[in-house]
């Protein structure tokens, strides 16, 4: 029904607009109320999630964002220096987003002070369950343990390195390993 027809058939277009506006206004008010009740909790959960991810790869007392320039191929979204209680640097933590086999993967990478990987933690991925999703597993003995201790030049065995890929999930394994290398390169470039 286009506006011209509306005007001809129902002269009370003002009434229609008023009713629609009233319903929308009431809905918006109710939403505002619910938002007020829940937003603090949602924000707290988000902070908690990042803290858990960071602590999972590299335990430290504080994480300070690094603003200096570093080599970034576009996948590192946040690089932070991990410090202990006295302020000495114990390593680095990087939040990364890169493309896997079935979409974007969000992963946290930890490096110790010697720029060796301390672990990875996949926070968000839509990889194939049973294959690429194995990279997200955190139980002891999971695939991600293969990347602990990796230093500059880490690559899959297929690509000339030493890391075994997840069988049937080469793309995901390669992407994760490449990302660890990217973070090592970035931290090395900080000097």
């Amino acid at each position: 029904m286009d506006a011209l027809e509306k005007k001809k058939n129902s002269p009370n277009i003002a009434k229609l607009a008023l009713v629609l506006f009233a319903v929308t206004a009431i809905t918006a008010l109710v939403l505002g109320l619910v938002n007020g009740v829940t937003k603090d909790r949602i924000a707290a959960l988000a902070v908690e999630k990042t803290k858990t991810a960071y602590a999972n790869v590299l335990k430290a007392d504080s994480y300070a964002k690094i603003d200096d320039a570093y080599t970034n191929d576009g996948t590192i979204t946040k690089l932070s220096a991990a410090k202990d209680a006295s302020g000495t640097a114990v390593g680095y933590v990087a939040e990364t987003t890169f493309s896997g086999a079935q979409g974007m993967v969000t992963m946290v990478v930890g490096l110790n002070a010697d720029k060796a990987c301390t672990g990875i933690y996949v926070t968000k991925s839509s990889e194939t369950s049973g294959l690429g999703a194995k990279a997200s597993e955190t139980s002891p003995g999971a695939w991600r343990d293969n990347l602990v201790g990796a230093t500059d030049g880490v690559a899959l065995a297929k690509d000339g390195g030493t890391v075994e890929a997840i069988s049937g999930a080469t793309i995901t394994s390669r992407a994760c390993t490449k990302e660890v290398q990217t973070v090592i390169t970035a931290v090395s470039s900080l000097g």
Partner: protein
Amino acid sequence: MTTKQQLREGLITNNPVLVQQIGMCATMAITTSLFNGIGMGLSVLIILTCCNVVISAIRKIIPNEIRLAIFVVVIAGFVTIVDLLLQAFVPALSESLGVFIPLIVVNCIIIGRAEAFCQHEPVGLSFKDGIFQGLGYTCVLIIMCLFREFFGKGAFGGGLINTVNGVIGTGNGVQIFPAKYGALILTLPVGGFMCLGALIAVMQYALRRSAEKKEAQEKAEREAADAAEVKEAAE
């Protein structure tokens, strides 16, 4: 319409996914673990019931020309409320369902019931309709999840049983047989399409068989009645 009739309709004869064949996007996309299925089913049930009640309550004052716009506003309101509540209290579900929670706004089931039922029926009936149609939808989701999880990964109860550290939404459930013997393809989008197609086919077969049986029974009764009449007339 009695409650029992409405229940039967919601679950079987007028099942939103299998018979009305609406609301299929989410059904195929999220049925990869039992947690997702039950979570989505319950969310839709709550939203559907609330929207049914509100729309039925204001049905007399909605002008006919803008009724769809008003339905959409009310539904979007409830979906956002449920979305915010899930983000705050069950974040695991919010994450695994992702963009499909806000997409409940355009789930044809809710708009379809509002248009077809709640506009004309009182609040009590609309409330029950919401619950039963939501139940029908949840049942379909659960059946698909069970099937896809069991035959695809050999697991049962992903996200609900065997959770990591007791956090709901994690873990892969009970492994009934080793995952490598499962048909992994069922957990992929292909599996979603085929499972739903097979389920609708089974439902159509069952409904047709039951309709044929009923017809055959009625025919037999009619013939028996005719034969008795003829016999009476002959005597």
